[in-house]
């Protein structure tokens, strides 16, 4: 398929709400998953014959299992508050990229088949039949939603388009219309253990090479352990961290922080993936399937802490869903044998799971890390709040901690930090444009158009404040920015991991002999202090 020609949006001084251009993003959507990728996930490999009945039945099933879907479908009053909030609408001007219009693709069908008014007066209430055209629109426009939840922040009822988009994608998968990118990757993650399909020997080699490289570059024997039973920490990080720039510099940063703290940690070859695309396709069961690998790794490796690397939706799944899906967390009820089996093993003095940023922040607060901030002096840094971290999680157990902690870590290692415009950060942050399963080349047009609002805010701080570095804590954001930054005349290398900045400034002065000795002594007191910090 030849790539469609399209104009890259100009960056305006202020974001203006575009005039509607109906159908400008109409299309066939991303590549569809063939049998080979659909079957292993339990989905049919092509549009089934009785797809309409199957789809309606699945809609009924989903709305009876998810209160969010039922309530959101019924409660929208079409007030229009969300219409100018989606980055894909702002960048593309296609009205079906307005959150409410995107939802209405699903809602109009719900009304037609499930509500009194829609069954008897479809024209009056905007109810529509589920036909081929509608399903095509579903496939196309629900793959132009990154499930970033920005619209939900601004909705008076908290209606979350991500929930509707996940439900629609699950219906599509059920009738055989899966997205190749997500479902192919899920196949790899669920069999090999990571999205890249990197088998254990390759991963081991990669990590050994990395150890050599880091020792050569920084003169300290920083280790990247794999499958070490009895380690204190199991690190679950997106597999992008293992090989690609700028991700791998973040991994080096984690390794240096662990090294300096002197804690024992390990990666798992069985659960070598933080990302969980089960969330993107809206499948609870598949999301759980991927999460169970982490549970198994934690049990097998007998770790007492589970930690998550820099990955946006991974942190959402970990923070908000792991406890539910697999018991990685705390506070299981006394009769809950399944969760207790794991939770009794995990050290309840630490938050479970913990984000690497929480860990580094805590060490900084306790004065355990020393930095030479001047190493980052050539940089003026701004921070991109990744949508899933910003709108669906927390860090540090304090209100807004997910905004505070990463910024504090950056400020501890950099002298020059500025924020982008207030309406484009924190809970109102603009998505990078590549989240939610859209990080594939066949969706490049919407990825570039959707990046426009973020790029605009970045352009402002570049012009006004001299920002030359964009830091993020999400693998998808980093990959997406590497691709789209040059389209808007930015340096593609300006995107970095937060832990790359940490890595550049950290002073590795931990005497190695002391590590083994101090470990057992300080462990307990550290843990207590960390726990106190968390509960405050």
């Amino acid at each position, binding site marked *: 398929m030849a790539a469609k020609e399209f104009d890259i949006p100009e960056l305006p001084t202020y974001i203006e709400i575009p005039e509607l251009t109906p159908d400008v993003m109409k299309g066939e959507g991303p590549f569809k998953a063939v049998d080979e990728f659909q079957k292993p996930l339990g989905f049919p490999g092509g549009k089934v014959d009785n797809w309409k009945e199957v789809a309606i039945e699945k809609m009924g099933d989903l709305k009876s299992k998810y209160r969010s879907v039922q309530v959101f479908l019924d409660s929208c009053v079409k007030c229009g508050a969300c219409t*100018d909030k989606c980055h894909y609408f702002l960048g593309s001007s296609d009205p079906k990229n307005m959150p409410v219009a995107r939802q209405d693709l699903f809602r109009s069908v719900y009304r037609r088949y499930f*509500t009194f008014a829609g069954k008897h007066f479809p024209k009056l209430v905007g109810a529509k039949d589920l036909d081929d055209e509608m399903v095509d629109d579903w496939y196309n426009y629900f793959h132009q939603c990154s499930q970033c939840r920005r619209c939900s922040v601004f909705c*008076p009822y908290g209606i*979350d388009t991500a929930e509707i988009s996940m439900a629609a994608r699950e219906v599509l998968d059920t009738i055989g219309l899966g997205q190749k990118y997500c479902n192919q990757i899920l196949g790899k993650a669920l069999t090999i253990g990571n999205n890249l399909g990197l088998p254990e020997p390759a991963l081991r080699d990669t990590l050994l090479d990395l150890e050599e490289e880091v020792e050569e570059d920084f003169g300290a024997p920083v280790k990247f352990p794999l499958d070490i039973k009895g380690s204190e920490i199991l690190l679950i990080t997106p597999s992008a961290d293992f090989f690609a720039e700028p991700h791998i510099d973040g991994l080096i940063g984690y390794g240096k922080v662990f090294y300096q703290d002197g804690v024992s940690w390990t990666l798992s070859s069985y659960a070598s993936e933080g990302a969980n695309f089960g969330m993107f396709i809206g499948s609870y069961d598949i999301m759980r*399937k991927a999460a169970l690998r982490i549970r198994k790794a934690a049990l097998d490796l007998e770790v007492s802490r589970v930690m998550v690397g820099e990955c946006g939706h991974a942190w959402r799944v970990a923070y908000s869903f792991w406890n539910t899906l697999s018991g990685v967390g*705390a506070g299981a009820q006394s009769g809950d044998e399944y969760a207790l089996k794991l939770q009794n093993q995990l050290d309840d003095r630490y938050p479970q799971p913990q984000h690497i940023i929480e860990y580094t922040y805590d060490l900084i607060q306790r004065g355990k890390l020393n930095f030479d901030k001047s190493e980052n002096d050539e940089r003026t840094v701004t921070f991109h709040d990744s949508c899933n971290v910003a709108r669906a999680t927390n860090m540090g157990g304090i209100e807004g901690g997910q905004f505070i902690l990463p910024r504090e870590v950056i400020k501890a290692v950099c002298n020059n930090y500025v924020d982008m415009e207030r309406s484009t950060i924190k809970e109102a942050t603009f998505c990078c444009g590549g989240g939610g399963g859209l990080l594939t080349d066949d969706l490049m047009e919407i990825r570039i158009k959707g990046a426009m609002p973020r790029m605009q805010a970045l352009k402002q701080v570049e012009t006004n404040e001299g920002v030359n570095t964009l830091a993020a804590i999400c693998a998808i954001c980093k990959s997406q920015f590497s691709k789209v930054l040059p389209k808007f005349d930015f340096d593609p290398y300006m995107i970095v991991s937060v832990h790359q900045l940490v890595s550049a400034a950290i002073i590795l002065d931990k005497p190695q002999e002391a590590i083994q000795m101090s470990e057992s002594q300080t462990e307990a007191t550290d843990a207590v202090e960390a726990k106190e910090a968390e509960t405050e």
Partner: protein
Amino acid sequence: MSLISIIFTALFYISLFIFIVGMGRKIRQFWITPVPLKIPIAPTPLTQTGAIFKMIREVTLFESLFRSNKWIWLFGFLFHFGLLLVLVRHLRYFIPGDLPEVFLLIQPFKYAAFAMIIGLAGLLARRIFVPRIRYISAPSDYLMLLMLIVIGVSGAIMTFTSNHTDVMMVKAFASGLIVFDWTNLPTEINFLLHLFLVLVLLAIFPISKLLHVPGIFFSPTLNQVDNARKKRHISSWALKQEKENTVKLEQTIGKDE
């Protein structure tokens, strides 16, 4: 009793019945539908108290809407707040016998009708003139606003112009509905239109977007506490799957523990 009074009396009970049964069923549906995952939306409350205050702010001040769009907030707030005051004032018609003194104090609430009408007119104007909102509007969205405007205007005409209706007769009729002591109602067209549309509104409540009224309280993004790490949250169906260990594992690849 006149035929028209009998018809309206019957309509009142029919509408009320539809409203109560319909809302009861809908609220029950919202109530029993599980919430499998923690999905609060930022800014998230970390405690139950925080979640309650967030909900109170959303319901009374429309906090998210204010953050979102000042015009929609202004018109929406004028309408809802006006409606609330007007409804409170309408209690006088339904309470049999002499009114408590407090009703003298709320007499000025009648002016809230103007806030209500201005708010509705603003919302209708936006629906017609803002292309984005016009795009997402179905005929029912306009009709709903028009209906409310006619209710508001017909009420205001009776209150503020010389087209007064017989208030004592209205009171006898309305309170009679409550205590099953049915009487005739005034037959001015303003009053009949006003009453008829209110009854229609009552009847379509459970089958229309007016479901946002109970809906907001059930919205998981707004009412959940952000404590997923500290307390295990699990839905009935997920727990059942977990217990039976049948997360359709046989259909998906990879081995379970």
